């Protein structure tokens, strides 16, 4: 009893946070059964009748396209952002001038802090049909015909990979810079005295020391391979129907089915699929990491 009295004020302080997580995170988990219901907003999830047959909400012709797009984009993003992130991080860490280092580091991180709406305005300034910089200045200069970017699906994989690189590379880059800063300087000096070339130092000292960070970052991204940045895929192509074949992902599908086509059941099914695969992947990836390097495992 004395113990309870002692901790009671602490529990009172913890209560708002615990309740918020219960509402915002735990209640919706139960709502995942909406994937197997014929949901209507009036009856809510639990009052709505079951779907018949039970897998009805999952049968959509879009399933293949949205799964393919989500996975392929994620692979491209992981590859591009990590490779360039590592190269930029090594260069920034090796630059001798402190002032220059600070400028480079600020520049690489800044786009990460922008909202996707602002990013979509900038992309629009570049790609707009009538006024875009590409169609008005750059393509004519190169003697090329203007392109109607927002209705040409083939160009979007490249555009989205570039935009995602521009916006996101700073995130991984900073983690790699922090990891490089943790390497013992004496190792570098010893290698230099032994006459190792720059390339040898990067290959034999820097890169191996980055392996734990690389594993952690890549694994985190792999476990989220069924998720896509809703803003990137919805906002940057401006929700343009003509390019859905290359820009529709699970997250944009979930949004459009729920709020544009008013079909919560289909939307819930896609969300269910996403959550379950995600959970399985997190467990699998973590088990894999534990097996090879225990200290990098998430749990």
């Amino acid at each position, binding site marked *: 009893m004395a*113990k309870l009295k002692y*901790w009671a004020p*602490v*529990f009172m*302080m*913890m209560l708002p*946070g*615990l309740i918020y*997580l219960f*509402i915002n*995170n735990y209640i919706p*988990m*139960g*709502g995942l059964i*909406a994937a197997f219901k014929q*949901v209507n907003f009036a009856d*809510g*999830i639990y009052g709505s009748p079951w779907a018949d047959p039970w897998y009805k909400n999952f049968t959509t012709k879009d399933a293949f396209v949205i799964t393919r797009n989500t996975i392929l984009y994620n692979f491209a993003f992981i590859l591009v952002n990590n490779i360039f992130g590592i*190269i*930029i991080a090594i260069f920034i860490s*090796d*630059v*001798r001038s402190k002032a*220059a280092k600070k400028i*480079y580091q*600020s520049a*690489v*991180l*800044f*786009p990460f*802090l*922008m*909202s*996707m*709406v*602002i990013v979509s*305005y*900038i992309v*629009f*300034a*570049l790609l707009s049909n*009538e*006024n*875009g910089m590409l*169609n008005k*200045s750059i393509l004519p200069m190169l003697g090329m015909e203007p392109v109607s970017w*927002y209705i040409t699906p083939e160009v979007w994989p490249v555009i989205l990979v570039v935009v995602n690189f*521009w916006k996101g590379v700073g995130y991984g880059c*900073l*983690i790699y810079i922090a990891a490089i800063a943790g390497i013992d300087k004496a190792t570098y000096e010893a290698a*230099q005295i032994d006459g190792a070339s720059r390339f040898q130092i990067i290959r034999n000292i820097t890169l191996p020391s980055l392996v734990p960070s690389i594993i952690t970052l890549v694994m985190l991204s792999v476990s989220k391979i069924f998720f896509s940045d809703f*803003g990137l895929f919805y906002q940057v192509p401006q*929700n*343009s129907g003509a390019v859905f074949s290359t820009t529709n992902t699970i997250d944009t599908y*979930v949004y459009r089915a729920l*709020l544009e086509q008013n079909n*919560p059941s289909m939307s819930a099914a896609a*969300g269910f699929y996403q*959550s379950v695969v*995600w959970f399985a992947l997190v467990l699998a990836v973590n088990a894999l990491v534990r097996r090879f390097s225990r200290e990098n495992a998430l749990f």
Partner: protein
Amino acid sequence: MLKTKENRRYQLLCNCVLTVMTLFMIFPFVLLFMSSVTEENTLIMNGYSLFPQKFSLGAYQYIFQNGQKIFHAYGVTIFVTAAGTCINVLMSSMLAFGLSRKNLPFRRILTFYVFFTMLFNGGLVPSYIMYTGTFHIKNTIFAMLVPNLLMSGVNVLLVRTYFANSIPDALYEAAEIDGAGQARIYFQIALPLGKPILVTTGLFAALGYWNDWTNGLYYVNQERYWGIQNLLNKMISDVQALTSGLMSKQMAGMLSTMPSVSVRMAIAFVAMLPVLAVYPFLQKYFAEGIAMGAVKG
């Protein structure tokens, strides 16, 4: 570092590559700014350009003269960011304070309760139905404040770890002997000592609120509760609907009275201005936060 010929050449290579990268990162913002100060007709004739032929501050003048709607949205964003960040920091740190205490009953279960929210969630549909059907937050200010952004499990655990590692038990014991209650210990010991981590997680929470447009998109369809990002989102989707011919003639007529091309860019620039303004001073915290794994919102 040794000053050999190879090192000099390597430094040159680094600086060249990184200069190109810096220009690539910065040029879109320059383009945005330049578009906002380009004279309207020049813009329509020559398109968006880094070096406009004719400058004009007309867009900014327009915002200041006719911008009630813009100022209102800006005000909503400021309010939501301020209120949301305060609640976020308070709620996360109080929960983290409890979880950081080694003798807390049910400590392991409660920590797992927080941790599990990082591994699994119900997704948009159940959340949407719950928030609109059960809590009726659609078209209220709570819609901008509550869903997802009010607290994140990741940040709670970061703060917990910081408290556990930087505040020795002896300090708590000494305070208790002096007769301080738990609330007082939280306010006078934990909060001041946890300042570095609270500033970092608070900063990311603030950024999450400032940049958020999804809550407005999902839960609000009345302009009075829209933040600046939602207003921008609405303006650009109207333009898109017009150019793709999906819009009726009547709506298109309304659109012609809407902010012109350069004004839209000016509003976007004004929306990013606060982030740009604080960035040089807070860059250190952003960098540290990312290295630790803090998340937006």
